[in-house]
């Protein structure tokens, strides 16, 4: 399809941000990760007494982990994976079934489940790349995978418990304490963010930026676009798989709705779009803001769906690049102003 010929084509107006280079110095590159960890580590001191609030905080962190994984796949390489919940669910169900039915030790179950999710995600990515599906068709294919997976969960009743779900009896005992679970997931978040930053700083990140900003130019400059897309698919899917697996063990109970498309994918997409696609802290900002928002909107029932819808519309019309890039730009602008004021004799 073509746009109207007289319509201005505004590349910046795309909902995909342009990735900035990460800082060179080690300290400047990793301090946001450390600061995030330190700040979020204070949350249980504040909420620790309230079991329900801690439960919500843990769920919020899990969504943050999903968002980082999705950020590697979609935010960094433009592969619209509409199967975040399904890949996490694959990890979760595989981990539980392997430990409960096949009586494997929990660690082995976690490793195998993560490997399975990684393999499936990598395969999806490979197919999308090989058939050069583009954003939309990648989205539709992964969406069909999501919905098929949800149907399989419902259909394979004897293995998955169908709609009623699975009770995870062999859960790790210490994870039943919500505060312990919180710190475990926070640790995972810090590790994920560090991995994301390390990727950004490596040649992989360089390739990601190149292929995201202009795929054709990247290809011409010698970037093996296909290979790096599959890398992103594998790394992101591994993050999703292990998050789903650990969550299943910590939650004592999983059901298809735990990993449902409408529950996970939409939220992760909105969170990440709000925070800023492809940015280090975008997932964190999205997580915190939406956790607070959920708490505020808790009594609104169906109207919450309406508000979510409005938010999606406003976000994508207004803040196309997300909050983190907008704030960074603003800070850069302030810094430049300050510098020019110092340099210029008044």
């Amino acid at each position, binding site marked *: 399809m*073509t746009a109207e*010929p007289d319509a201005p*084509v505004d590349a910046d107006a795309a909902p995909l941000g342009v990735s900035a280079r990460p800082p060179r110095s080690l300290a400047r590159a990793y301090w946001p990760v450390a600061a995030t960890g330190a700040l979020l580590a204070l949350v249980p001191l504040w909420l620790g007494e309230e079991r329900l609030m801690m439960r919500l905080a843990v769920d919020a962190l899990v969504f943050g982990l999903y968002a980082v994984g999705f950020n590697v796949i979609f935010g960094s390489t433009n592969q619209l994976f509409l199967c975040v919940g399904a890949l996490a669910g694959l990890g979760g169900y595989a981990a539980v079934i392997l430990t409960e039915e096949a009586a494997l030790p929990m660690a082995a179950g976690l490793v195998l489940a993560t490997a399975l999710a990684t393999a499936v995600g990598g395969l999806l990515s490979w197919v999308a790349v090989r058939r050069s*599906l583009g954003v*939309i068709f990648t989205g539709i294919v992964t969406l069909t995978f999501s919905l098929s997976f949800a149907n399989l969960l419902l259909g394979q009743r004897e293995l998955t418990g169908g709609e009623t779900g699975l009770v995870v009896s062999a859960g790790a005992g210490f994870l039943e304490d919500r505060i312990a679970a919180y710190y475990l997931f926070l640790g995972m978040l810090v590790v994920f963010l560090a991995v994301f930053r390390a990727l950004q700083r490596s040649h992989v990140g360089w390739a990601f930026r190149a292929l995201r900003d202009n795929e054709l130019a990247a290809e011409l400059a010698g970037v093996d676009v296909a290979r790096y897309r599959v890398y992103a698919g594998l790394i992101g899917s591994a993050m999703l798989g292990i998050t789903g697996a650990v969550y299943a063990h910590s939650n004592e109970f999983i059901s298809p709705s735990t990993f449902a498309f409408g529950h996970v994918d939409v939220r992760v997409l909105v969170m990440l779009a709000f925070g800023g696609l492809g940015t280090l802290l975008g997932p964190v900002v999205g997580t915190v803001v939406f956790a607070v928002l959920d708490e505020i909107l808790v009594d609104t029932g*169906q109207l919450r769906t*309406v508000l979510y819808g409005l938010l999606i519309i406003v976000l994508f019309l207004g803040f196309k690049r997300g909050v983190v890039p907008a704030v960074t730009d603003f800070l850069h602008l302030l810094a430049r102003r300050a510098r020019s004021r110092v340099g210029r004799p008044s």
Partner: protein
Amino acid sequence: MTAVVLDGIVLGLQFGLLGVGMTLVYGLGGVLNLAYGQAAVLAAMVVAITLGDGAPALVATAAGLLAAAAGGVVIDRTLLRPVYRLRGEHRVLLGLLLTLGVAFVVDGLLLWRYPTGALRLAIGGEAVPILGVRMRVGSLWASGISLAVGAVLWLFFRATTLGRAVRSAIQDEVGARLIGINPAAVRTFIFALSGALAGLVAVTRSMTSPVSVTAGFDFTILALIVAVVGGLGSVAGAFLAGVLLGIISTVSAFYIGQYITTIVLLAAAALTIVMRPRGLLGRQV
């Protein structure tokens, strides 16, 4: 077996109409309308409410279709304007996300106001034997209406100036503009038509099984599958794919089971994209 295939055709004709509405909007506006199913549900709810107020079925249906068509026009004229300024994948992506937002808003509002809303058009009368199979009157009506509307659409696209204008705008927007067609006006018209088609399918579906207020997402997915298999932008392809998928769906539901059927339909869409991205009858993309 005949009964299963006939049921499949009944279902498939409706799948076809559903797919046509989706495929037209994509072909012309470059937007995958994720709020498409919500138009169907909106129509169903309006029909149910006006019927409840004592209006005759025809009037109620007309009101429902009008509401869905109006919804389409409003979205096209307001929300999607910035989308049309973009090009290529950015355009489709922004369209996708904005219509997703619309879907949530409509779903949330309908669920909030009518949490248990559902439309069921009961059509009385004795079952009619066709090819030795007793078909319910509701199924016959649903197929008859779908066929008639399909035929009207076909004539419209072949034989009327407006229909030809639509086809030319789908093929080449710049070319259409050069011969004096206003693509924006055609697009608005298509959004109205697409909304009305979604509403119509909701009404014909309700003749055989209830259409509940939560059915929006399912309608959208179904329309997406049909449109993709038929080839995005191809009206005939959508119809063909609809009938094929309808038959596949009832046959597999009968012999294998319901949940596998959904997976079969989804796999059909995924395979089509991977093997033949332009679909059954689509143009080269």
